[in-house]
C-alpha cells in the first residue's frame, strides 16, 4: 500500500497544526461558529445530534494494522470505544470533543491519516473496488490511479469551493464492486484492442434527492491523461454547476440539464487545451506509485489445500463461512476473505476498539499487515493463505466478526439515521437490526441468495437505498417514522435505480413488507435467478399485489 514520503507527511502535519490553531481560536472565542463551521467541515468534523462527529479518511479503503490500532486507540481514549465504517470506506467517531481535536489530528498524522476533505464541497475520499490487487478478474489495479487522484485532489486550489461535494470511484474489473455509476465521476479501467489500459469515463451519477445513473462520456481515456481529464470535468462543473439551489448543485443535475453529450463536448474542448500540460502523467510517476501496490510476497502454493477440505468437512459452520465469505484470488492457494461487520441484530458497520485491535493482529498474522474497508461497511483481507483460513476463522469467531452473510439479505448497508445524524427523518439502524433478525436463519438466507438490502434515514441516501435491490428510506410524517420501500436498484455494472413500490410503512410494517417481497420472489423465481433477475423479469406488480393485499 502507499506510504507517505516527506512531502505527504509534511502536508498532513501542516494541515493538522493549522486546524489545531483554528480550534484554539474557536475555543478562545476569537472566531464565531459561522466562521469556524467551514473550517471544521474541511477537516471532517461535524456537529451531530449528540456531539461532534469526526470522519477520518481511509483512502480507497486501504488500511494497515498500525493505522487500525491507532483508530482503536482514538476510539478508546477520545470516543466511547467504537467507530463506524461508512459507505465511503471511511471511519467515523460519534462522540468527539472539540477540545481534543488538535491532539487527535496529530495522532492521526503520525500514522498517515487525516480527515481532510471528508466533508465540504470539494473532492471527497476516492473509493475503489475492495478486491483491488487480488481479484482474479482484475484488469489493472485501480489503487494506483486512486492514489494519483488523491494527491491531485488534496487541497486543490481551484476545486475546494465547488457548487457541491464531489465523489470519484475507480473500478479495475469488469465486475463493478465500487458502484462507479452512482458517482460524480466513475472511472472503469479496461483495455483497448491494442491491449493498452485506459478508462471509460462516467459522469453525473449520484443518489440523494434526485438520483441518476452516470453517463459514459468517453469510451477510452489513456491512463496518462486521467488528471487532465478529471481537471477538465471539474473545471466545466465549477463554472457551470448550479449555485442557486443546493439541491440542484451536484454535477448530475448539470449533466442531466445539458445532456450527457453536450456536457461531454464541453469537457473534450476544455481537455484539448490542457491535456499536454504538467498534468500528463509521466510513466515514471505511474511506476513509482504502482510500486507501492506491488503484490505482497505470495508463496507458491497448490490451489487446493487438503487441510482446508478436512476442516470444512469436520465443521459445518466453518464450511458455511468459507463458502459465503471467501472469494477467488488470482494466486493459487490464496483467498480473499470478506469479514462481515453486520452481525445479526447489531448496528451495521459499528466496530469496537477491541475488534479493531484484534483485527489488526489478524491482518499482521495472515494478511501482510493490511486490510480493506468496503463500501458495504465491511472489512476485507485480500491475501490469506487457504491453509490459514481455519485458524483465521476461529479467531474471527472470538472477535464476533465471523458472521457468514456476505451478499445475503442480512448484510445490509445502513446509514446512521436518526440515532446519530442531525439530518435524519427516521432511524435506520433499528430497522437493519430487526430485518437481520427476521432473516437470521442461515438456511433461509442462503436459499434467498444474493440480494442487497440498503437503507437510509433520509433522502440524502448515505445508505444507498436507490441502488439496493431492496431499498428503504425514512421519511418524517407528523412526528412518526415512516418508511418507503423501493425495489429494483442495483449498484453493479448493470446499475439501475429502485422504484417506490407504494405507500409507506411504520417500523414493524416495513419489516413485514420486506418479508412479503422475499416470499414473492421465492414463489416466482426460475432456476438460477437472483432476486434482481426475477424482479426485472416480472416487474413490480406481483410484488405490489402481495405486499399491499396482505391483511394489515
Amino acid at each position, binding site marked *: 500500500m502507499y506510504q507517505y*514520503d516527506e*512531502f*505527504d507527511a*509534511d*502536508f498532513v502535519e*501542516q*494541515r493538522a*497544526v*493549522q486546524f489545531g490553531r483554528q480550534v484554539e481560536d474557536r475555543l478562545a472565542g476569537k472566531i464565531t461558529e459561522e*466562521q469556524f463551521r*467551514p*473550517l471544521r467541515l474541511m477537516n471532517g468534523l461535524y456537529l451531530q445530534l449528540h456531539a461532534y462527529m469526526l470522519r477520518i479518511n481511509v483512502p480507497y479503503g486501504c488500511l494497515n494494522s498500525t493505522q487500525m490500532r491507532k483508530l482503536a486507540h482514538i476510539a478508546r481514549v477520545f470516543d466511547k470505544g467504537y467507530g463506524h465504517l461508512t459507505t465511503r470506506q471511511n471511519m467515523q467517531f460519534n462522540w468527539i470533543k472539540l477540545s481534543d481535536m488538535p491532539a487527535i489530528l496529530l495522532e492521526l498524522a503520525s500514522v498517515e491519516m487525516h480527515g481532510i476533505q471528508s466533508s465540504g*464541497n470539494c473532492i471527497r475520499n476516492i473509493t475503489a473496488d475492495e478486491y483491488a490487487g487480488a481479484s482474479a478478474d482484475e484488469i489493472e489495479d485501480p489503487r494506483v490511479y486512486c492514489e494519483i487522484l488523491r*494527491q*491531485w485532489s*488534496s*487541497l*486543490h*486550489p*481551484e*476545486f*475546494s*469551493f*465547488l457548487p457541491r461535494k464531489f465523489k470519484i470511484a475507480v473500478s479495475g474489473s469488469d465486475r463493478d464492486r465500487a458502484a462507479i455509476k452512482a458517482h460524480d465521476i466513475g472511472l472503469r479501467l479496461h483495455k483497448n484492442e491494442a491491449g493498452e489500459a485506459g478508462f471509460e469515463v462516467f459522469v453525473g451519477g449520484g443518489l440523494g434527492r434526485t438520483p441518476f445513473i452516470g453517463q459514459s462520456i468517453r469510451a477510452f481515456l489513456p491512463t496518462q491523461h486521467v488528471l487532465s481529464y478529471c481537471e477538465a470535468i471539474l*473545471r466545466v462543473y*465549477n*463554472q457551470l454547476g448550479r*449555485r442557486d439551489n443546493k439541491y440542484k448543485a451536484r454535477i448530475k443535475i448539470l449533466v442531466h440539464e445539458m445532456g450527457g453529450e453536450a456536457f461531454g463536448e464541453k469537457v473534450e474542448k476544455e481537455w484539448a*487545451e490542457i491535456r499536454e*500540460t*504538467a*498534468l500528463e502523467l*509521466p510513466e*515514471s*510517476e505511474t511506476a*513509482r506509485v504502482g510500486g507501492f501496490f506491488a503484490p505482497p510476497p505470495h508463496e507458491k502454493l497448490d490451489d487446493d489445500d487438503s487441510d482446508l477440505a478436512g476442516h470444512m468437512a469436520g465443521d459445518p459452520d466453518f464450511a458455511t463461512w468459507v463458502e459465503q465469505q471467501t472469494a477467488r484470488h488470482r494466486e493459487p492457494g490464496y483467498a480473499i476473505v470478506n469479514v462481515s461487520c453486520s452481525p445479526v441484530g447489531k448496528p451495521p458497520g459499528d466496530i469496537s476498539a477491541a475488534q479493531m485491535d484484534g483485527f489488526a493482529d489478524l491482518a499482521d498474522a495472515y494478511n501482510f499487515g493490511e486490510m480493506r474497508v468496503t463500501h458495504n461497511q465491511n472489512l476485507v483481507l485480500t491475501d490469506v493463505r487457504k491453509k490459514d483460513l481455519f485458524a483465521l476463522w476461529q479467531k474471527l469467531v472470538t472477535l464476533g466478526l465471523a458472521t457468514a452473510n456476505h451478499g445475503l439479505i442480512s448484510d445490509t448497508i445502513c446509514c446512521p439515521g436518526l440515532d446519530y445524524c442531525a439530518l435524519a427523518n427516521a432511524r435506520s439502524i433499528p430497522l437493519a437490526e430487526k430485518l437481520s433478525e427476521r432473516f437470521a436463519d442461515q438456511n433461509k438466507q442462503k436459499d434467498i441468495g444474493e440480494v442487497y438490502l440498503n437503507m437510509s434515514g433520509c433522502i440524502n441516501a448515505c445508505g444507498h437505498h436507490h441502488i439496493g435491490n431492496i431499498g428503504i428510506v425514512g421519511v418524517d410524517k407528523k412526528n412518526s417514522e415512516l418508511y418507503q420501500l423501493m425495489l429494483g436498484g442495483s449498484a453493479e455494472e448493470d446499475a439501475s435505480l429502485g422504484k417506490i413500490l407504494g405507500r409507506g410503512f411504520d417500523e414493524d410494517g416495513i419489516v413485514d413488507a420486506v418479508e412479503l417481497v422475499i416470499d414473492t420472489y421465492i414463489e416466482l423465481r426460475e432456476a438460477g435467478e437472483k432476486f434482481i433477475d426475477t424482479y426485472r423479469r416480472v416487474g413490480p406488480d406481483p410484488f405490489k399485489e402481495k405486499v399491499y393485499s396482505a391483511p394489515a
Partner: protein
Amino acid sequence: MPLLKNGNIIEDPYTRVTEGEELPGEGPILVDLALWQAQRDALVARSSEVGVQLAAGESPAAIAPDLEHIALVALEFPAFTDGRAYSYARLLRERHRFEGELRAVGDVLIEQLHFMDRVGFDSFDMKSDEAAEEWKTAQADMSVWYQPTGDERPTATRLRRS
C-alpha cells in the same frame, strides 16, 4: 476596505465607476463589465489604467480579446463558498496569459488566501485590518503542493523527480 498586495496593505489607486456615472478625466478606474462593453473604445483610449470587475457569473471569455488594454481584472466572490472565480483566475493567467493585476473582491477570507494565491490572484480586498498579518500566517501554513497551476510553485511530483 484594506487592499492587500504583495503582503502589504496599500492605498487602492483605482476609482470605481459604474454605468451612468461620468468617467473621471484621469487616473486609474475600475469599471464593471457592462460599462466596459458600452464604452470600450473610450476606455481603451484613456491614458491611465483601466480595470474591469467581473461578477461571479461573468466568464473572462467576455474580455479575453481585450486583455492587452486592461491593467486590472477584479473577480468577485459573492460568498466565499462560490468558487467560480478560482477557475476564471486560472483561465485568465494560464489560458489568456493575462499578466496584469488580478484582484479578489467580495467575501475574501484569510483561509482562502492560500488557494487564491495559487490560482493567480495577486491582490485582495480584505475585510480585516490585520490582513497583512493574516497573509503571513496563510503563507506559512502550507509548504507542499500537489497541483501544477500557473503560479509555478514546484509540486510534490516535480520535486520527487528532481
